[in-house]
């Protein structure tokens, strides 16, 4: 009998060995796969209610977790939400996360793999888990200034960056929204706010329109044509371009008109300087037809078009050339060359293109994150300029810069001039169908010989006069403000 009792005990112990094994599997070996399961919202809820790191701008928190009395121990709170909504994004339990809140989530929640020793320390000391704070490259004064330049009701975007480092100094867009609405602990309130916000035209919950929204670039795209032309060897700085008032396409009824404002109509032959100063259409259409679609695409790619992988660290919508049309016929290529047809860009893409020209052809990776700090404010990583790609040669960059300077000095971007500073710039006016309204662009940098600041302004759906007033003069003010710092 005792042997049977002992055997029964052995069976019981074996059963217990099995459950110890299954517990070990669940709580040790399968932890990562269970935590990362798409249906597991625990980690999210854990983060949602935990002491997440702050997002800092100029030393001040623009997003921070404030202790509450409820079971959800911290409430994410945004100060100045309208000004920073497009950058910080929001952290919601039910509606997801966007912007920096999403792209830097591991650092902010303290769950990144390099925070492992922090977590061990928390376990040993019993401290509440605490995330790391993320400091942005944004200059709050410039950010505010840029934001105020966009009139309410105009869905514009402004990007100010350092062309030599890629650090984004300001990035704003309107309309904006109150991110606090999306971070509420009340799921019903969040879903009501979300329903309302997604219906408002121009609001993009995924991030600022400056890097998530695509617009027709219009004439600022002519910088791509110019770079492609010089790179091909078929053109040089002294080339004389055809500048007809109308460009007919044999076999079709389509004719491409030259730019109706400015001086284009005064001559039928043009230098690059003249064509750029007056933003003439037909010379660049001619270049594109001469070089072919592939050469233009190649140059566009070198400026960062069609790149789905860029993150600042929030994901940037890829700009498109040639866009949805794929293989372009003659008229389509001509229209694409002047930034119409289905060419689409983000304002950030234009800023990156101009920055590459400013930086001797080397495109720096744009970035919003200046530093990541531990709860005791020790920086664990800090901003290091990163080369993204070589967009063009230093010679071509220098040549285009020279022409862009004359656009501001003698051409249609005169309003961008800053006393005592050599400003390089280019405007764009992309027609939106037959509405008579345009996407009005300015992109440029200064000082031309030692670029410190790049400014890109985009004001959609405005008439020509309003566009001219909202772009170049504001660029001048922003350049001046940044250079004064």
């Amino acid at each position: 009998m005792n042997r049977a009792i002992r055997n029964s005990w052995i069976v019981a112990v074996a059963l217990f060995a099995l459950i110890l094994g299954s517990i070990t599997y669940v709580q040790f070996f399968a932890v990562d796969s269970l935590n990362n399961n798409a249906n597991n919202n625990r980690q999210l809820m854990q983060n949602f209610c935990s002491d997440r790191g702050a997002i800092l701008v100029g030393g001040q928190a623009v997003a921070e977790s404030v202790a509450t009395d409820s079971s959800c121990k911290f409430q994410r709170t945004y100060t100045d939400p309208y000004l920073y909504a497009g950058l910080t994004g929001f952290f919601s339990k039910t509606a997801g996360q966007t912007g920096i809140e999403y792209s830097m989530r591991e650092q902010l929640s303290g769950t990144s793999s390099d925070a492992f020793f922090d977590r061990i320390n928390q376990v040993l000391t019993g401290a509440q888990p605490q995330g790391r704070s993320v400091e942005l490259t944004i200059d709050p004064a410039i950010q505010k200034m840029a934001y105020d330049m966009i009139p309410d009701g105009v869905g514009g975007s402004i990007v100010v960056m350092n062309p030599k480092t890629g650090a984004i100094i300001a990035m704003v867009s309107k309309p904006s929204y109150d991110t606090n609405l999306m971070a509420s602990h009340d799921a019903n309130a969040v879903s009501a706010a979300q329903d309302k916000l997604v219906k408002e035209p121009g609001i993009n919950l995924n991030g600022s329109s400056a890097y998530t929204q695509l617009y027709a670039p219009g004439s600022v795209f002519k910088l791509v044509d110019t770079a492609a032309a010089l790179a091909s060897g078929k053109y040089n700085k002294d080339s004389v371009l055809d500048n007809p008032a109308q460009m007919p396409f044999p076999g079709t009824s389509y004719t491409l008109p030259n730019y109706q404002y400015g001086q284009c109509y005064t001559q039928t032959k043009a230098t690059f300087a003249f064509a750029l100063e007056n933003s003439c259409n037909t010379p660049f259409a001619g270049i594109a037809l001469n070089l072919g679609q592939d050469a233009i695409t190649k140059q566009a790619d070198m400026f960062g078009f069609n790149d789905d992988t860029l993150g600042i660290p929030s994901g940037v919508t890829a700009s498109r050339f040639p866009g949805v049309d794929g293989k372009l016929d003659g008229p389509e290529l001509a229209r694409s060359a002047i930034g119409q047809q289905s060419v689409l860009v983000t304002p950030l893409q234009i800023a990156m293109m101009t920055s590459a020209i400013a930086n001797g052809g080397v495109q720096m990776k744009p970035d919003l994150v200046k530093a990541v700090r531990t709860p005791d404010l020790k920086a664990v990583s800090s901003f290091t300029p990163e080369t993204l790609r070589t967009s063009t040669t230093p010679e071509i960059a220098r040549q285009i810069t020279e022409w862009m300077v004359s656009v501001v000095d003698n051409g249609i971007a005169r309003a961008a001039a800053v006393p005592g500073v050599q400003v390089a710039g280019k405007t764009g006016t992309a027609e939106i169908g037959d509405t008579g309204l345009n996407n009005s662009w300015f992109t440029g940098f200064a000082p031309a010989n030692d670029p410190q600041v790049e400014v890109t302004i985009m004001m959609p759906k405005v008439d020509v006069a309003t566009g001219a007033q909202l772009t170049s003069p504001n660029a001048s003010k922003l350049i001046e403000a940044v250079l004064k710092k």
Partner: protein
Amino acid sequence: MSQLLTVNKPRRTAELGLLLVALAVGIMANALVYINMARRFDTDFYSQSAILAVLSLAMHICVRLRAKYADPIILPVAVALNGIGLAVIHRLDLGSATGDNAGPRQWLWTSLAVIVAIAVLWFLKDHRVLRRYTYISLMASVLLLLMPLVPGISAGDVNGATVWIRLGPFTFQPGEIAKLTLAVFFAGYLSSNRDLILLAGKKIGPLQLPRTRDLGPMVVAWLASVGVLVFQHDLGTSVLFFGLFMVMIYVATSRISWVIIGLLLMVVGGAAAISIFPHVNKRVDVWLHAFDPQYIAAGGYQVVQGLFGMANGGLMGTGLGNGRPNIVPLANSDMIVASIGEELGMIGLFAVVCLYGLFFSRAFRASLGARDAFGKLLAAGLAFGFALQCFIIIGGVTRLIPLTGLTTPFLAAGGSSLLANWILVALILRISDAARRPIDTTTPKEPEEVTAA
């Protein structure tokens, strides 16, 4: 003093020391809940801690007076587990979005259960008395098992199983008590009839087959298991009853043939159950495909959320009050193991499992030491039943086996389970006292193996 045989010492002081440790574990766990959930230490905390201490000490004194030689580990282990359970249930009440208030009821039941255990230990001076009630126990078991099906007192279908009765404000699972009465019946029946069962019957090869008429009680046990499954939809209890009987008949006969027959019956029964009963079939499906889209939000939700919780706790746990165990349905009863795994981590859950292991091992030790066949069988049955119950529920929660709704001994919220398990403590203490008590030297010493041949 130079005897070769070691004389068992009462070890009551050791029990008291361990009891203080056990009390400290439970009370400090509860204190952690207060601290981590930012609650002030209210009168509830002090009164509840005092109640737990007084009850445990009362039980200890009862053991001193009435079961001086009882195993000193059993009571502290039970107190520690019960204390942890109370703390975790309190923590789950505080974290509940729907305002659960299982804590006070659990305190009430704990008090009642310990008092009943004291009474059992006090009045049941010799466990062999129970042998007289062999067939009454069988009757009682059948009645207890039928009660949830009786209109008027049945609490109906709760979470898919008809195992509850309602008496005024209280609900009760009579099946919990039936485990004890069935064990008493099996022990009584087998200790009386084991010689017959052993010696009669055909022999085929190495297998000694039982006579058909000796198969009677086995068939009864099988029918009881199947009945529970068919009428009450309670797979876990069904398996538990059958396992209980299997072990007891094996201990009684030492015949592996019985176990093989039993396992075959179980396989046949299980296969039939899967194909006949949709709820069993569904449980198996959910178990195999818990993470599939069609189950993850429906039938598999409970077990999957439990696993997510345990993974969230990982090795060290989130700390009591810092996890989110309330996401899991039935977090304070069926799934309390997942709650503990999340907040106390793998380390904490291992500690709990080790306490269970200690508990059933001491019960087996009592069975080994018992000097009568009835005591041996009862203790072995109760010990194995307890271990099997832990295996079925913890294995279910960790997705080792399909999840079935069994209570987690001493931890889960629920009065019937507490009551049954505290009576179990009293019975094991009683049997271990008999096992360890030095044989009175004034009467001739019986050969050790007379009853345990």
